[in-house]
Structures are given as structure tokens and as C-alpha cells.
């Protein structure tokens, strides 16, 4: 069935007129139902307040590098949690006149659930929260909204104070820990120092100097020893020079030996002219020459050394004696110098050992000092931070740095919100017309009777001669007018009833 809008409207009106009794009844019933509904529907009053919340962690500005906060926070959810905490809800329950008689636990539970449903927390922007509460009593709605807002703010401030107190305590605790560390590090250095006295600053340099001095002393001792030795040698040569006979005898022996060698060499040369080298005489001769040459050498050596003189030939005589005394003195000096040299050298060794030890101690000390420095630095930093935290805490204690405040306080609601009398009345006016028309049209659709000429001409394929209607007789016209008047009267009386109720409502509310 495809109807144009004008056809549809005609059809709707016609079917409604056709079933005018039913339609009128439905109109009256629907209108009255909505009217009654409008009268008994509870009035809901909403009171709401806006709270400005600037949420910042106390630790963040105080310890910018250490603490990291999560940035996305559902403030409305937090506010809901705060307001509906056990403590807060107990206060809300106490405050208003919710019950006439002392409630049972179940009643209380139901009320809490209903409070939760009737309260709305909404994020208005980054830092604004709206808290709204619905109730059928405007005064109670206002009181509860105000109380919830106050509770939220008190709780937030308290939480903030607790937070700054916590931040201070935390930093204070850290300060104490670092203080302990610093003290123990300093104590360790002190102990170490007392254990290693050498390890005073400059000990190493002193040791170096001492070592240098010892070295110089050793060198001078060496020089002295050399001097004494040469003196002793000279004295001894002088002593040897006193025995010149012995020397000439030695030279004589040498000359004899040399002559003999020359003779033998001549003989050897003569023999070589006639004989081969492996001739026994030649070999013998060679051996003799060699032997003699050795003897010459020994003689020269013995003469130069003069050793044999001392032991073999001691001379008496004053000069010799004097020289001998001198030599004896020199020998004594020399031996004393040598013992001194040894002593010096052992001192040097000791000094070297000390120097090594100093180096090791200094490395350990450097480490201890480094620890100490780091601790000291941290400690000083924390000390200044602790002072900041103390000031922040004091500010919060006096509510000076408040970041939670009422932006717009709750007001006493005058007009009810939500589905109101006016809405129901409007719906009633609409529905009271829509229901009868809809019902009449629905019935006309249900009965499956032919109401469309197109069905006859197109579907049943019957030729339509004409579409007629009865002549409107005066009786019919009169009847129609009477019926229309009755229907009109019914409609107008219902609307008057509506108007009267609206008037009463308006006057009552004004």
C-alpha cells in the first residue's frame, strides 16, 4: 500500500472519524492517564557546584629529576571515590533528614545506592569538576550538594597536607641517611689516617728527598774509598821502590832469558833450512822457545806487581817503616769507609720500601675521599631541598597554597529538572491525539478490507465506472454536526482540564 501524504492524512482522519466513539474514549483515557502521571510524577531538583582542582604532586617541584607523575587523571572519578568513601558517606547520611525513624542497615544500604545514582561527577575541563545531586526536596538537594562539595574540598586539602608532610618526611629521612653515610665515611678516613701516619700529605716528597740525600752520601763515600785506595797503592809502590836490587836482578834474568830465546830462534831457523817442520829437533826447539817466552812474561809480571817483595823481602829502615805505617793507616780508613757505604745502601733500600708503601696508602685514601665527596655533595643538596619541603609543608598547613577551591557554589534549585510536569503534559497532549488516530488506523490495517480503489482496478482488474458517495441529507449533516460537537466538546473539556492543572501548577510554583 503506497499512499501519498495527503492520502495518508485523509485516510487517518477518515478512519478516526469512522471509529469516533472508540477514538474519543481512547483520547480521554490517554489524556487522563498522562494528566494523572504528570500530577504524581515526583519533582526532581538538581543542585550542582563547580570545584576548581589543580592537582600537582608535591614531590615533583621539590625533586624535579627524581619523581615522575602520571599526567592523565580522571578527576571526576577521584572526586566520586572521595565523596563516597565510607567516612564521607557516613557524614552525608548524618547530615540531612533522610529517615524519620532510625534506619535499618538494609535501608541505609539502599539509600547509599540511591545517593550514588543521584550524584553526578563530571569533568568540565582540565581542572574543573561539577558535582550535582538530585532530590525531590530542593532544600535537601542543595544541602547535600553543598556538603558533598565541602567534604571533597576538606578531604582534598587534608590529602594535600598529608602529601606535603610525607614529602618532607621522605626528604628528611634521606637527609638523615646521607648524614650517617657521610659521618661513617669521614670516620673511615680518620681511622685510616691514624693507622698510616706516613700518609700525611707530602710524605712522598719527603721520602724522595731523603732518598736523594742518601744517594749523594753514598757517592761521596765511593769517592773517599777510591781516594784512600789510590793512596794505599801509592804507598805500597813507594815501599816496592825501596827494593831496587831485586828489580835489577829480575831484569838480568829477563835479559838472559831473552838472549837464550834469540839463540834458540837462530838455531831453529838454521834447522828449518834443512828440515821440515815436523823434524823432532824443530818441535823440541819450538817448545823450548815457548817455555822461555812464558818465563819472560812471568818475570815482568812479578817485577811490576811487587807482591813478592812484601812477603819475600821486608826492609827495615826508617822510611820503609814510615811508609808501612802510612799504608796501615790507609787500610784502616778504607775498611771503615766500606762499612759506612754498606750502611748507607741499606738505608736507601729501606727508604725505597717506605716510598712504595706511601703510594699504596695514598690510592686507598683517594678512594675514601671520593666517597666522602659524593656523599657530602648529596647531603648538602638534600639539606636545601628539605628546607624547601619544610616551607611547602608549612604553606599547606596554613592552606596558603590551596589548589582546590569552590569555583561556583551550589544554589538552592527553584525549578525541578529532568522529566517535569510540562513534559508529561506535552506528551499527554500529543499522545492523546496520536493514540486514537493510531489505533483507528491500525484497526483499519488489521481487518484486511479493501479501502483502496487501486486494488480493485489494478489487482482485481475490474473496470471502475464511478466512485460515488451518498447525497448528504440534512439529517446526515445534522448528525455529523452533533457528533463533531460532541467530539469537540470532549476534546475541549479534556484540554480545559489540562489548562486548569497547568494554571494550578504555575500558581503553586510561583
Amino acid at each position, binding site marked *: 500500500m503506497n499512499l501519498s501524504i495527503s492520502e495518508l492524512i485523509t485516510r487517518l482522519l*477518515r478512519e478516526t472519524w469512522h471509529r469516533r466513539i472508540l477514538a474519543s474514549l481512547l483520547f480521554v483515557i490517554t489524556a487522563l492517564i498522562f494528566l494523572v502521571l504528570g500530577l504524581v510524577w515526583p519533582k526532581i531538583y538538581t543542585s550542582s557546584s563547580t570545584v576548581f582542582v589543580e592537582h600537582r604532586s608535591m614531590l615533583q617541584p621539590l625533586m624535579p629529576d627524581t619523581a615522575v607523575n602520571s599526567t592523565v587523571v580522571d578527576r571526576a572519578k577521584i572526586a566520586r571515590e572521595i565523596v563516597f568513601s565510607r567516612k564521607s558517606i557516613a557524614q552525608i547520611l548524618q547530615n540531612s533528614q533522610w529517615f524519620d525513624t532510625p534506619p535499618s542497615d538494609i535501608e541505609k544500604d539502599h539509600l547509599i545506592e540511591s545517593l550514588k545514582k543521584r550524584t553526578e561527577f563530571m569533568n568540565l575541563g582540565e581542572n574543573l569538576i561539577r558535582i550535582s545531586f538530585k532530590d525531590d526536596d530542593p532544600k535537601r538537594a542543595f544541602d547535600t550538594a553543598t556538603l558533598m562539595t565541602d567534604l571533597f574540598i576538606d578531604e582534598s586539602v587534608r590529602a594535600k597536607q598529608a602529601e606535603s608532610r610525607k614529602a618532607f618526611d621522605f626528604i628528611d629521612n634521606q637527609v638523615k641517611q646521607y648524614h650517617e653515610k657521610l659521618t661513617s665515611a669521614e670516620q673511615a678516613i680518620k681511622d685510616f689516617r691514624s693507622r698510616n701516619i706516613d700518609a700525611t700529605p707530602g710524605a712522598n716528597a719527603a721520602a724522595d728527598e731523603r732518598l736523594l740525600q742518601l744517594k749523594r752520601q753514598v757517592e761521596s763515600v765511593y769517592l773517599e774509598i777510591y781516594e784512600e785506595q789510590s793512596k794505599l797503592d801509592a804507598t805500597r809502590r813507594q815501599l816496592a821502590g825501596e827494593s831496587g836490587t831485586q828489580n835489577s836482578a829480575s831484569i838480568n834474568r829477563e835479559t838472559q832469558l831473552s838472549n837464550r830465546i834469540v839463540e834458540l830462534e837462530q838455531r831453529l831457523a838454521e834447522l828449518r833450512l834443512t828440515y821440515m817442520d815436523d823434524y823432532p829437533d824443530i818441535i823440541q826447539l819450538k817448545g823450548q822457545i815457548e817455555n822461555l817466552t812464558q818465563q819472560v812474561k812471568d818475570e815482568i809480571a812479578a817485577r811490576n806487581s811487587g807482591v813478592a817483595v812484601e812477603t819475600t823481602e821486608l826492609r827495615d829502615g826508617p822510611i820503609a817503616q814510615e811508609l808501612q805505617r802510612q799504608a796501615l793507616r790507609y787500610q784502616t780508613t778504607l775498611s771503615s769507609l766500606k762499612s759506612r757505604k754498606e750502611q748507607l745502601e741499606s738505608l736507601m733500600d729501606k727508604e725505597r720500601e717506605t716510598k712504595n708503601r706511601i703510594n699504596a696508602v695514598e690510592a686507598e685514601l683517594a678512594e675514601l675521599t671520593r666517597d666522602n665527596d659524593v656523599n657530602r655533595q648529596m647531603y648538602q643538596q638534600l639539606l636545601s631541598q628539605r628546607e624547601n619541603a619544610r616551607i611547602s609543608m608549612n604553606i599547606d598547613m596554613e592552606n596558603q597554597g590551596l589548589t582546590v577551591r569552590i569555583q561556583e557554589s551550589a544554589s538552592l534549585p527553584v525549578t525541578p529538572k529532568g522529566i517535569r510536569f510540562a513534559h508529561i503534559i506535552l506528551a499527554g497532549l500529543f499522545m492523546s491525539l496520536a493514540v486514537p488516530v493510531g489505533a483507528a488506523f491500525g484497526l483499519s490495517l488489521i481487518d484486511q478490507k479493501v479501502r483502496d480503489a487501486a486494488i480493485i482496478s489494478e489487482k482485481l482488474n*475490474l*473496470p471502475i465506472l464511478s466512485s460515488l*458517495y451518498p447525497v448528504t*441529507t*440534512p439529517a446526515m449533516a445534522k448528525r455529523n454536526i452533533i457528533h463533531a460537537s460532541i467530539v469537540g466538546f470532549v476534546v475541549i473539556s479534556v484540554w480545559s482540564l489540562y489548562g486548569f492543572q497547568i494554571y494550578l501548577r504555575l500558581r503553586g510554583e510561583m
Partner: protein
Amino acid sequence: MSIIEKAMKVATSGSEEQIIDKIIEEEKRVSASRKKDPSLLGSSRNQISMMVQERVFSESELLSKGIVHSSMKDSVLLNKYRNLRTRLLATTEKENFVTLVTSVLPQSGNSLVATNLAATFAFDEGKTSLLIDANINNPELHSILDVNSELGIIDYLESDEINSSGILYETPIPRLRLLPSGKARVNAAEYFTSEKMKDLLKDLLERYPERFPVIDAPSITQSADTRILIDLCDKVILVIPYGRCSEEEIRYAAIAIGQEKLAGVVLNEF
């Protein structure tokens, strides 16, 4: 019918003048196809003008009875009836033909349709119409036309003593005669099947040259009489009331009438 509906009807039926022009044009065409000797026409006119007419309905009487007349205010309806008449004439070549008006369901307003159709035929001073009330169980026409009928078609068929002119009544509408049903009977079908009924119709047709008999029959789905009468007549008009019959009922009625005799349907109050 409410005032709103009427207004809608006028609005949807287009300009009145156009409709009238169309009707006139069609009437010309139809009358041309039914051309007759002028002298013959004149004699039939004279014959008709001599018909007795004692009482005539006033306009207000017609209006209160719901009968159309040529000077009525509701020209839309008037033109619709004229249009219906013209179309009906166009369906057959026969000079005088019997039209039967029946409906799918009882109380569909077909008596008024039949009366108004007969009245429309009688608008023309050269034509007469005859209304036959075949609604034996529930005759209405005599009360619509204010005719005091003692005898009717059944009485005529039942007895041999009654003359056919004895049951033909004059009505307060000029050129319209009524053949009432007579006393209510139970087994009317048996009378309608008789030869006498056939003869009666033939006799009535031949009495005047331009006579258009219209039979008001009961609804076809309810009455066996109607089926028998269909055999005796030339054209059948089926009245379909608004919102009262189903598709199936209409189809059944159309089949019962048969395609040959069915001139077309008339929608009542659509």
C-alpha cells in the same frame, strides 16, 4: 461523511468545469452512436410527455431522501452520476437495456445507487426509467420514493389476474416509474425463473422506446435471486462499499456475475 472528507474529495476530483466538459463530450459521442430518426424521437417525446404525473418531489424532499436532481448544489456528485450513466450507455449498443445494480455485501447503499441512477436517466425528457425492486426480503425503494404499493412484482408473478400495468407505480420523480417487490416472500427465486418474469421484462421494455429499467437486487454474495436475475438483464453494476469487503469477496462477486454482463464496479464512499 464529514466536512473535511468532502473538502478533500472536491480538492482531489479536479476542476469541475473540466469534468463537465468531459461528460458533455462523451454524451455527444454516445448519442451519435445511438442516432435515431428525428421523427421517431419526436413521437417518443410526445408519448413520454403524456405520462401522468400527479406529484413531484420538491428539492428539499429530494435532498432529505438523498436523491440526485439536475439542479442540486453538489455538482460533483451530480456529474459523477451523469458520468456513470454515460459510461453505462457506452457499454452496449442495445436501445433499451436492463441494468441490474447489486452489491458485494448487504447494506452497501446499492438501493440508493439504483434509485439515483434511474433518476439520472430520467433527467432527460426524452427518456424514462423504471426502477424494479428485486429486494424481496428487504424492500426499500417504495419508502424512498414515497410510493404506497399494495401489489408488487411477486404478486404479479404469483397470480394471473393482475395486469402488468397494475403493478407499475407513478413516483414523485418525473419519468421514473417504480415496480415494487410486493409482499415479502421466502422463496422468490422460483418466481424469477418463470417465463412470466421474462415476458414481464420484455413487455416493460417495449412499452416506451427510450426506457431504461434498473433492477435493485440484493447483494450477490447473500442472495440466489440476484444470480437468476443476472441472466435476465443486460448489464450489471457491482457496488463496492468502502472498507467493508475483502479482496476475496470482491473477486467472488465479480466471478459470479461473469465478465460478459459486468459493466463495471461502482465504488461507494471511497
